[in-house]
């Protein structure tokens, strides 16, 4: 049972560099089961890089990443997806040419199987599978209240809704760990409130562990169980929101010169 009790994800001493730029240096972060972890920090602090390392887009040149206790440092994105990690992107990465429904259906690709020759015939197992997953996707559509747009091409949606559809797509994979890169960026107050509610609901309803990057401090304080602060590619604070808010290093980082 040590596996189940340990952290879901632990990032241990990882460093990432682009040429001469140290994007992350010896950063360690743990994500515990069922928690909502917020990662904050000024622009260029390495937050997105951290998410990219976890999701397999970049590989650290030192350090290790464990998921459910197993080392998975060198996995590629599809392998990461198979482990049960899903994510959204800072600049919405929807499949613009596909409908909302199809976008979310792609989220279930890993759960679908079978031979392509069966797909070609459509009848039989392939069809049953398709319809069963449609039913599952409809639950998510209902959950995120996007019924009215299910057949709209994703590219035609307003930004706020696109973000919601992207969350739906990530949820469709029924991930153990959900990584959200600025889920509320560019939203108005009302959309932000909705998104907060959805994130909390996902966490409580499905027990999904969530790690998110967010700029809006109010939101961070409201919804997260724990906050990790990065600055210049280093971790400068890690703890409950109230504590982090008072941390001197954090205050300095935020009040000091903004470095883009």
């Amino acid at each position, binding site marked *: 049972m040590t596996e189940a009790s340990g952290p879901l994800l632990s990032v241990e001493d990882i460093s990432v560099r682009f040429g001469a730029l140290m994007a992350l240096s010896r950063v360690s972060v743990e994500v515990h089961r069922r928690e909502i972890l917020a990662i904050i920090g000024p622009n260029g602090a390495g937050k997105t890089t951290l998410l990219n390392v976890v999701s397999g887009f970049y590989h650290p040149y030192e350090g290790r990443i464990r998921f459910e206790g197993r080392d998975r440092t060198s996995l590629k994105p599809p392998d990461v997806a198979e482990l049960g990690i899903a994510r959204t*992107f800072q600049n919405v990465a929807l499949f613009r040419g596909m409908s909302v429904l199809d976008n979310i259906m792609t989220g279930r690709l890993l759960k679908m199987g079978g031979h392509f020759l069966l797909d070609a015939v459509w009848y039989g197992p392939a069809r049953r599978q398709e319809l069963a997953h449609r039913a599952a996707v409809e639950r998510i559509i209902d959950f995120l209240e996007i019924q009215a747009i299910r057949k709209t091409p994703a590219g035609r949606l307003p930004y706020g809704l696109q973000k919601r559809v992207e969350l739906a797509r990530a949820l469709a994979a029924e991930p153990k760990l959900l990584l959200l890169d600025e889920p509320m960026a560019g939203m108005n107050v009302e959309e932000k409130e909705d998104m907060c509610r959805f994130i909390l609901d996902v966490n409580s309803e499905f027990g999904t562990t969530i790690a998110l990057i967010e700029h809006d401090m109010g939101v961070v304080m409201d919804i997260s169980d724990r906050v990790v602060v990065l600055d210049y590619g280093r971790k400068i604070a890690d703890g409950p929101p109230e504590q982090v808010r008072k941390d001197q290093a954090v205050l300095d980082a935020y009040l000091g010169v903004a470095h883009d």
Partner: protein
Amino acid sequence: MIEFLRSLVLPFADMVSSPTFFVEVLVGGIAAGLMYSLVALGFVLIFKASGVFNFAQGVMVLFAALTLVGLMERGMPVPVALALTVAVMIALAFAIERVVLRPLVNQEHIILFMATIGLNFFLEGLGEQLWGSNVKRLDIGIPDESFSVAGVLLNKLELSAALTAAVLVTVLAVFFQRTRIGRALRAVADDHEAALSIGIPLKTIWVIVWSVAGIVAIAAGVMWGAKSGVQFSLSLVALKALPVLILGGFESVPGAIVGGLIIGVGEKVAEVYWGPLVGGAIENWFAYVLALAFLLFRPQGLFGERIIERV
């Protein structure tokens, strides 16, 4: 089996045993390579400035050569005919910008690519309609004869063509790196909006680029035309420039030059030494396979920068 392997290795021995022939092959390859570079440069210019993969570059070469020959056949002196051809190519650039590019601005690249294939057909029809479709000789006053330097046979025409190509390539490279317009072009290539915001009219840029590509096409047309006559097959030279582009990168001027040389030399050497082994005529595809094999190891091309994908 042994026989086959032997024939694979033997050419290397041949190269060493008759070095003069090898040098001749090499020079021929370099000469051809520079021509490829010239055509490839036209591609690069347009791709760099507008993101358009101009499939019609080959036909532009044909069209330019046809125009020149046609004018000369009607008794015009060479300089006048040349000047007029330049004027025609510039007019063509204006027309293309107005009729094809402007209405398609902001369309996907593949659409613009298809449009240039349409342009390809159109120019082919137009050129042959205007100037006739029979093979024409283009005489620019340099005799197609050979002379010998240190036992190596060299062709005057090829040599002067290579020289001209080299000069043109250099001029273009300098134009791109050093002049104001060249820098503007680079700005456009990097970011359309940024370029617009610093006050460069995109339309003008496009006209200039297509004009320059047209002039480059004249040069290529004259060279190839003088060597093998002006006819439809001239436009196929363009297809040869494509592997050059893969090798050198679509946006790199030096890449086009070095790539052209590699392809030219590689192709010649392979054709001469290994061609007979498989029944000849491997020129058609060897360049592609060479470029492809190369790409598998270096996807960004010779001079491309390693792309770090921002996620």
